[in-house]
């Protein structure tokens, strides 16, 4: 029998298992530490999960081992974990996504070894309406996150022109992501077309640094500006989610000043944050990503 630990969180009792199991062999970070991280980051993280279909990326044997994506909320979920049906065209049926609305639900998911939480850009009640636009900047080796900082600043420059606020976060893996809060009526045809056009414009202006097409061969030494995440059927790693990397790194909101500084100093380490760092940052700075949920903005009409 695997060791079970019973905990009481808010009003719910949960049975947690294998808390001593090492999930990040390079640092010895255990499953227990992972659950502890999610418990403590919950006040900042939960608003970003609220009402959004979430895909659980589960790593039953830790970050360096096999994983699987779980969209359909497990049938053995406790009855206090609500779900939201979302029509899946490719499966011709509704998929019932988990809604992680409170700390007990978050801890329950963490106990399922859902290291990574990937959320929709829409709320479950309006899946066709993205509440934000995202650019996923993915460096093709030998390019690094430092090359992503410069591309992110080019994106910011464009949004500044239009008087739109954009916010950067690390992917927690190799790249950076730039978010544009919308929170106004729109649709994916609109956001995706805009994102794609902007990616192509950057590629045209900076052909040696930027690529807008997925083709692997084109990406060597360049930054892929992935616009295609702006899709009803896709999910993007949620802010404050851990990533399955050698070390327990987190998708972390950063300030534009930090992005500029990392570019000027060519300092990749300045944009790498582990679970402990992120808890400290949130304690000091609060949730830098709060505007993504609150700020009402509209894309310019072209």
């Amino acid at each position: 029998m695997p060791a079970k630990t019973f905990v009481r969180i808010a009003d719910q009792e949960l049975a947690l298992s294998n808390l001593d199991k090492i999930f990040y062999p390079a640092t010895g970070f255990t499953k227990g530490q992972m659950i502890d991280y999610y418990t403590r980051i919950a006040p900042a993280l939960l608003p970003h999960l609220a009402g959004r279909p979430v895909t659980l990326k589960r790593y039953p044997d830790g970050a360096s081992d096999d994983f699987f994506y779980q969209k359909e909320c497990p049938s053995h979920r406790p009855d206090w974990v609500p779900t939201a049906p979302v029509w899946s065209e490719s499966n011709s049926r509704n998929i019932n996504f988990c809604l992680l609305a409170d700390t007990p639900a978050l801890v329950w998911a963490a106990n399922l070894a859902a290291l990574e939480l990937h959320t929709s850009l829409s709320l479950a009640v309006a899946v066709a309406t993205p509440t934000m636009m995202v650019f996923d900047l993915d460096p093709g080796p030998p390019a690094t996150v430092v090359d992503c900082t410069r591309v992110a600043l080019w994106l910011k420059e464009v949004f500044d022109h239009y008087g739109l606020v954009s916010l950067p976060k690390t992917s927690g893996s190799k790249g950076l992501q730039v978010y544009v809060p919308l929170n106004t009526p729109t649709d994916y045809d609109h956001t995706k077309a805009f994102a794609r056009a902007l990616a192509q414009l950057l590629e045209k202006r900076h052909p040696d640094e930027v690529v807008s097409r997925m083709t692997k061969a084109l990406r060597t030494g360049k930054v892929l500006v992935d616009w295609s995440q702006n899709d009803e059927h896709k999910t993007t790693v949620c802010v404050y989610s851990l990533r399955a990397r050698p070390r327990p790194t987190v998708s972390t909101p950063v300030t534009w000043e930090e992005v500029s500084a990392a570019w000027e100093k060519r300092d990749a380490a300045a944009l790498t944050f582990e679970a402990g760092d992120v808890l400290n940052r949130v304690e000091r700075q609060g949730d830098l990503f709060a505007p993504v949920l609150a700020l009402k903005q509209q894309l310019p009409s072209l």
Partner: protein
Amino acid sequence: MQRPIWSGAISFGLVNVPVKLYNAVRKRTVSFHQLRAKDGCRIRLKKVCPADGAEVPAENIVKGYEISPDRYVTVSAEELQTLYPQANRSIEIEDFVLLEEIDPLYFEQSYYLLPDKGAAKSYKLLMTAMRDTGRVAVARFVLRNKEYLAALRPAGLALSLATMHFADEVIPQEELEGLPGEETAPTDRELAMAGQLIESLTAKFDPNKYRNEYYRRVMDLIERKAEGQKIVARPAAEEGAKVIDLMAALEASLAAVKKKPPVKERRKRASAR
């Protein structure tokens, strides 16, 4: 280059025009192979007897016609061969008719007929005469052991041949239930309104207007998969060209924003006026 699928001659009266038959239509359908999911091994179909599970080689297979449940009359390939229509390599024109007399229901497959060596002149003559008289040729010919009824007519720079269904293959309307009767006759006013509606939607037929979107999407998916890209459940809604336009619009829009003087200055000038 297209390759001919048949060659022979159009014949009517004493005239003979040697021609070659080409496909006029290339169907845009996607065909998939069946593979084993885990390793991509190509699936092979075996012909087996369900009673004993034994594989049956081709030489042991005969054709059977089911005359009553589980009772068959068997026919050998040799027996069938004696019944094949005589392949006389000719397209025998029987009548010349007006195109509008043929209901499009009758048309089956379309082909092009092109002149064979040395036949260009007589071919051109036949085509021009048909065009001038506005007539379509109804003919019979044999293709791959099957006799066909066909309609020949000028289509652009060539003669086209459309195979046709025989009359007994077209389902007679007496077999249909629910045909409208006398009681449903429309009033003049209704007819005038319907006529106006049709008028407002009247256009010149342009086949390029209508695209096989499904085929395009499937091939797009396959191409992207072949390139090893991430596949989304639904491809982008935009056409390539349209996106380029949007990028240009974005570029122009950004340039315009740059040139615009700051809001304050503009206000000042406006109030000074």
